[in-house]
């Protein structure tokens, strides 16, 4: 067991949590990520293997699905990101690869991203100052790629109207956090 201490994308050992007038903005470093891209002509095999090996119905464009402990959202044609709790699934890419075999290419993406969860009754008011995703029409399980203050992000609706996750590039975590917090201060 190694003894290196991990830091979050925001640069601390503990996740950053801000609460602004009832809106909670929480950094979520506790998820591991792995990308899945079906090999040429192997989409059906990939989907079948994900169902068999992970219990996941790999979703179509604009959606994410959950089958604890896994979740998956669509990121591109025949491509998905798989999500699982970090501490129990730090080797997520290996687990996914084992499940999918040679049907798909799997790449560790855990530390490529920063995820912030927005929780509160005014999620739409905050997100509409940041991106053109029509969050008011998003239902739980909807996900979309969009841009927040020049940063490409995935916005996923975890609970309709109440909880959204914003996943962006890890290196710009501080900029993304600044954008979310200032938007919340502005909107609420």
């Amino acid at each position, binding site marked *: 067991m*190694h003894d290196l201490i991990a830091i979050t994308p925001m640069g601390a050992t503990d996740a950053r949590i801000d609460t602004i007038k009832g809106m909670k903005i929480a950094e979520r470093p506790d998820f591991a990520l792995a990308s899945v891209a079906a*090999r040429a002509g192997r989409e059906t095999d990939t989907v079948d293997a994900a169902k068999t090996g992970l219990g996941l119905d790999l979703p179509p464009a604009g959606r994410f699905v959950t089958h604890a402990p896994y979740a998956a959202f669509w990121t591109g044609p025949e491509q998905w990101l798989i999500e699982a709790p970090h501490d129990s699934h730090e080797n997520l890419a290996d687990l996914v690869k084992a499940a999918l075999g040679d049907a798909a290419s799997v790449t560790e993406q855990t530390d490529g991203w920063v995820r912030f969860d927005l929780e509160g009754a005014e999620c739409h008011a905050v997100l509409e100052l940041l991106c053109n995703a029509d969050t008011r029409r998003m239902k739980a399980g909807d996900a979309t790629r969009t841009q927040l203050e020049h940063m490409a992000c995935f916005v996923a609706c975890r609970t309709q109207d109440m909880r959204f996750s914003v996943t962006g590039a890890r290196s710009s975590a501080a900029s993304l956090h600044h954008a979310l917090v200032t938007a919340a201060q502005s909107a609420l």
Partner: protein
Amino acid sequence: MTQPNRLSGGRIDTGTALTFSFDGVDYQGHPGDTLASALLANGVRLMGRSFKYHRPRGPLTSGSEEPNALVQLRTGARQEPNTRATTAELFDGLTAASQNRWPSLRFDALAINDRFSNFLTAGFYYKTFMWPATFWEKLYEPVIRRAAGLGSLTLQEDPDVYDKGFRHCDLLVIGSGPAGLSAALTAGRAGADVILVEEDFLFGGRLNAETYGLTDTSTQGWVAMVMSELESLPNVRCMSRTTLYGVFDHGIYGALERVSDHVAVPADGKPRQILWRIYARRAVLCAGAIERPIAFENNDRPGIMMAGAMRAYANRWAVTPARTVAVFTNNDDGHRTAVDLMAKGVGVAAVIDTREDAPKIAGCEILAGAQVIDTSGRLGLSSIKVRRADGKVQTISCGALGVSGGWNPNVHLTCHQRGRPVWNEAIAAFVPGGDGPPGLGVAGAANGAFSTAAALASGSTQALAALDDIGIKGRAIDLPRAEDAPLRISAYWHVPGGKGRGWLDQQNDVTVKDVKLAHQENFRSVEHLKRYTTLGMATDQGKTSNMGGLAIMAELTGKPIPEVGTTIYRPPYVPVAIAALGGRARGAHFHPTRKTPSHDWAAQRGATFVETGNWLRAQWFPVAGETSWRESVDREVRAVRGSVGVCDVTTLGKIDIQGTDGAVFLNRVYANAFAKLAVGKTRYGLMLREDGIAMDDGTTARLAEDHFVMTTTTANALAVYRHLEFARQCLWPDLDVQLISTTEAWAQYAVAGPNSRAVLHKIVDPEFSIDNESFPFMACGEITVCGGLRARLFRISFSGELAFEIAVPTRYGDALMRRIMDAGEEFNICPYGTEALGVMRIEKGHAAGNELNGTTTALNLGMGRMVSKKKDSIGSTASEREGLNRPDALRLVGIKPTDSSAKITAGAHLMNSEGPVDAAHDQGYVTSAAYSPVLNSAIGLAFLKDGANRMGETMRLVSPVTNDNTTVEVVSAHFVDPEGGRLRA
């Protein structure tokens, strides 16, 4: 303090007093006032000076179409020029100042311009300031600008913040007059997602200004009831203080919400304004109509305003510009002003109606078939001169004159995508032509439906049609009974005769005479007329003036008005501050910042950072006692070459390439061979563009038969990824290749120097051997470190030393850097930044962004032979073009000054030791320069004609920019360890 011209009633809160100042004098107004209404209430008609002639001016309108009453609002950093007093909402403590006058508004020295008006006609500048040409920019223009201008900027930074936002709806309703309210209510009840935008701070549009709207119920009561219902519906969002300023492609509308303009200072964290991008499936424009003036001599005196505005001031703001007024009209609507003002107790001296059959008003003198031919009053209207139907001239005392030349439907937004309005003779006005933006319907007065009943009905009808279009079923709503008076108008544009000036465009001081002059000088197209006279330019974009100008041009050319046409309408409908367009992207947040995993560690060590793209990278790490960056960088270079150093190279692009055709793919995107790269090996690769020019270089490691990791330069990471995706998706979709960026996922450090292996021995878990035999130069492997953490190790070197790059998941990057520093302590390990990195790669002759500058080929870079002839790859054929392979083609060489204390300047050019120094004799140029602490000399990399065959030649290095003239010697670009013994150690 009294407000002598305040009337009773109105939609203002007279129970609350607000104190404000104008030109240093304190006044009082009430919540609900605009600056203009409050000043008029206080008897102030003079609010500004005109642009060119510095004529005294007061408000012409009561809305955003205002050309005259432009003021500077607020003071200090929040001072804002050219703000319309007619839309500036009054708040306690508001400070305003008039502009374009000196020394005071009442006495303006530059009013002398008015005396020279015969010379200062349209085209005056073009004709007069023609020579000498060089004087225009340096002398004439600055002087003219100083004399003729609007407000001024403080040049202080705006302390407020601005947001940008995005909203979506089924139906966007633009304007909240009778048509807008009816449309919004129809759609809101149908369950559609509705956004209702209103420019004003009160919903209701013209209903707030009229007494004649609904017949069986209170107009204000109905507005309140509708707004109450709309605001209670969860599917309807009502946005006041929001101007729809532009219609863009695909149902996207631009709207500016003035969130905090009506308060002295925005609340903490709140924006001053929000620029909304509204995505609407359908929209209905209910923007009403704008009243147009009639031109006559001296029709610009303070107190002369639109009749509808005079009525609005009286009914909504309980204000009259004077206690005795008159009305000049060509239509029945002007009579409403007289009726309403009389009802408010204001004396109406006369209604001058150009029509012979003007209707009568009880208790008011009607002069039918008459015209106003001149006015008097230096700083405000005192009397008008009227030519009666019998030809006699009569002078009438009055302090204000309401003018109505009819109403122009507000077609502006329907024309933002080059739609052209069409002429409707019945109302003597242009109406939307039906070729407006797709999905944008028009209702109410904006569509020429001028009665309240017609506006209500058309709003509902248009909303239903829009909803039907998108599959939402709605039902017609019950509408209140409303006036439905027909429009009675006889087109009348300007009063003929007289020698004085009749003003068309009060913002730009364009007169009827100017239009005649333009016609005389053959600027007859409306677009030429606009540019020659400036008619319709500036902040009001001619909302009250364009129609008059083109009607007069039609008269002069003998063409019907529709044949003359209108100029092009463009966004924005009202001025939009640049700050609003910029939003939050200002200062430090102009673009996102990317930080490396060791950023905090480097900051703790006092590193100086440099921006490379969005990344912040440590440039050097100063230590105590060092007084210049050079000392730090020299020390870092010596430390690496002498023992060991560590540098964060996470910023280099990393692309994960998988698939059974990964090797084939790489073989096609790289110019050199990759098909046979063995698992566990890394290879340097050069990528060409389609045109054969070098695009990027880097290394690619083969981790498994079907798994590669490509490294790109920091600068080109995105461009290369995009290029690869294009190749994968479009050029070779048949290949089994999958790509994903892993730049962010791995923290990567270069550990370089003779002791690098010794340091890594303490980090890398013992089951992985990294000695030279098991892990030779260009080896790579997946390993574990520090007791089991997954990692990747590459034996590659940018510095030319024995070196490794080690990568771990990014969250452990900070810890690994600290661990490497601990492990290297016994070797005096030294962190080094991008400057030392740059010095060492120049010493080693490695090309970087300076050399891969978008103009150079593999041949230029000395890597011509790397472009494999045994296979096809992107750019390989184009790289064989004759012009790129001339015998004297530029070649990468090293240069050293013959005097070791001399400098080498990047960008300087190489000239032969003898002969002229000019572009025709240019031999090449320096791309990179540095001081080498190893060689104790400046060194440089340069592209030199036929450079490979000129080793040892002495040349002159010149720079006309820095006046450099240095004697240099051409040497190999490999200054340090040309045999490569060190990196293979």
